[in-house]
């Protein structure tokens, strides 16, 4: 019965100890600095990580998405300072993806062509929930050669509420109040946990409600904090605000450029 422990070394402790002793003998016999002179065969790697991060917050009648606009090549040199990671698909759906930029563009094309076909078939725009399910299935269709992206879909759903759907690379969908993806995700998410989810403060402590102004300032501060500490986040914040019943507003705000 293979138990799903979700970790690689599922050996029992005794086997693990025997394996460790065996490794000790091997390394003592031929240490890596003697054997490591050989030129290792280049393993085929179809992906690369273009860095940058995105985040999204949804309130009761709005959804805002922000991302930085820097594209980096293997963590060091900057390819461009205004890469577009947020794509507004139609007036109620915003797709924002981070990760391998080739897959980012491919995902956008897949969704745009399906939305176009939906408009052709039903003469109506796709709603956010429908598009979210569609994206989850399409991510999963490449289960054995996945898109190397952390996708996020935000927008206003059918009954006018803000919605943020977060995905893992093969399409595990989940609707959340706020979410982030990309290189600086571990820095943005705990900050939003504390300020929006109010999970860390005591029960009786005052918890300010999430208005759109507060959400926008939280998003800006989250990215400023991330730009301070993460090397592939910076240059500009691309902020997209979707409010129920209002056209989508896009803004660019400056960030550190070093």
């Amino acid at each position, binding site marked *: 019965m293979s138990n799903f422990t*979700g970790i690689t070394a599922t050996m029992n402790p005794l086997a693990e100890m025997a394996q460790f002793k065996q490794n000790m003998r091997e390394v003592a016999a031929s240490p890596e600095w003697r054997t490591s002179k050989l030129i290792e065969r280049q393993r085929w790697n179809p992906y690369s990580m273009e860095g940058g991060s995105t985040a999204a917050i949804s309130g009761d009648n709005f959804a805002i998405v922000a991302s930085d606009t820097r594209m980096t090549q293997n963590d060091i040199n900057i390819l461009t300072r205004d890469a577009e990671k947020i794509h507004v698909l139609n007036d109620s759906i915003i797709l924002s993806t981070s990760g391998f930029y080739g897959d980012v563009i491919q995902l956008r094309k897949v969704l745009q062509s399906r939305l176009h076909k939906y408009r052709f078939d039903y003469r109506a725009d796709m709603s956010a929930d429908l598009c979210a399910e569609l994206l989850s299935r399409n991510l999963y269709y490449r289960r054995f050669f996945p898109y190397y992206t952390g996708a996020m879909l935000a927008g206003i759903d059918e009954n006018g509420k803000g919605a943020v759907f977060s995905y893992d690379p093969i399409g595990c969908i989940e609707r959340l109040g706020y979410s982030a993806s990309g290189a600086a995700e571990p820095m943005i998410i705990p900050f939003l946990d504390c300020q929006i989810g109010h999970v860390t403060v005591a029960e009786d402590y005052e918890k300010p409600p999430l208005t759109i102004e507060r959400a926008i300032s939280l998003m800006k501060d989250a990215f400023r904090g991330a730009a301070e500490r993460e090397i592939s986040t910076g240059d500009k914040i691309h902020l997209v605000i979707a409010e129920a019943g209002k056209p989508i507003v896009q803004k660019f705000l400056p960030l550190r450029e070093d």
Partner: protein
Amino acid sequence: MWGETFDDFESEERELAVAKQNFMHEPANMNFTFPSLPLGIQPVEFMNSHFGATAAKNMKFRKGTTTLAFVYEPATPADKGGIIVAVDSRASSGEYISSKSVMKILDIGDRMVATMAGGAADCQYWTRIVAKYCTLYELREKTPITVSAASKYFANALFGYRGKGLSVGSMVAGYDKKGPQIFKVDSDGDRCSLKVCSVGSGSLNAYGILDNHYKPKMTDEEARKLGLRAIMHATFRDSGSGGVCNLCHITPTEKIRLPPMDVSKLWYEFADELGRDIVYDPRE
């Protein structure tokens, strides 16, 4: 299809049409082939190197969980009996908790549920496929599908992808004409019917509590409390489980979903109940 009538294609452009069709339309599932890696690259080893332990924090697949289900008869006539399904709600990728509120009890029919353990995306997708099959079955046969048939279809579907790296550990539970049934289905394709079952990284802890307190005849209240307590102990000891405990009670007549209970609150209540002072006393 409309593609051909639009203009006449020679043969090699036909594959283009089929590819475009696959690309544009919802592929009918059974003859759908997943796009595969170039020849010579093993999917499992490729997945491990790009999405496994050494991958970036947020690029790992969401995994790890604790799910349990058990069947019990009503001890007193006031109880309804049936199946208790309890799950936690954490999806972790490596040591990073990618989500704290995943709904891991997925509906198949209106009387059947499947639980999610192992790969979150795999379970979500394949449960929807099984749900689609069950609804079509009901429309065709005009009788609700039995749990064993649904779980058999699930196992066959997974068997087709053995060795390609799918990770599913699901329990299909439901009430049908043969009574309450729980079938455990794995991505290795094995399927067995059990009375008490737990799957996931916290399953060992959950089994400890279940084996200790499980009685074939229990009151509803006692059974629900046992489900909650087992999940709480699993989340305490296992770092891959946590968040809130979702509980679903399938009775002979209907399916009741209880509101989620925060596991950490349960733990503090459990400590007060035992009168144990679990708070760490600060020292130098």
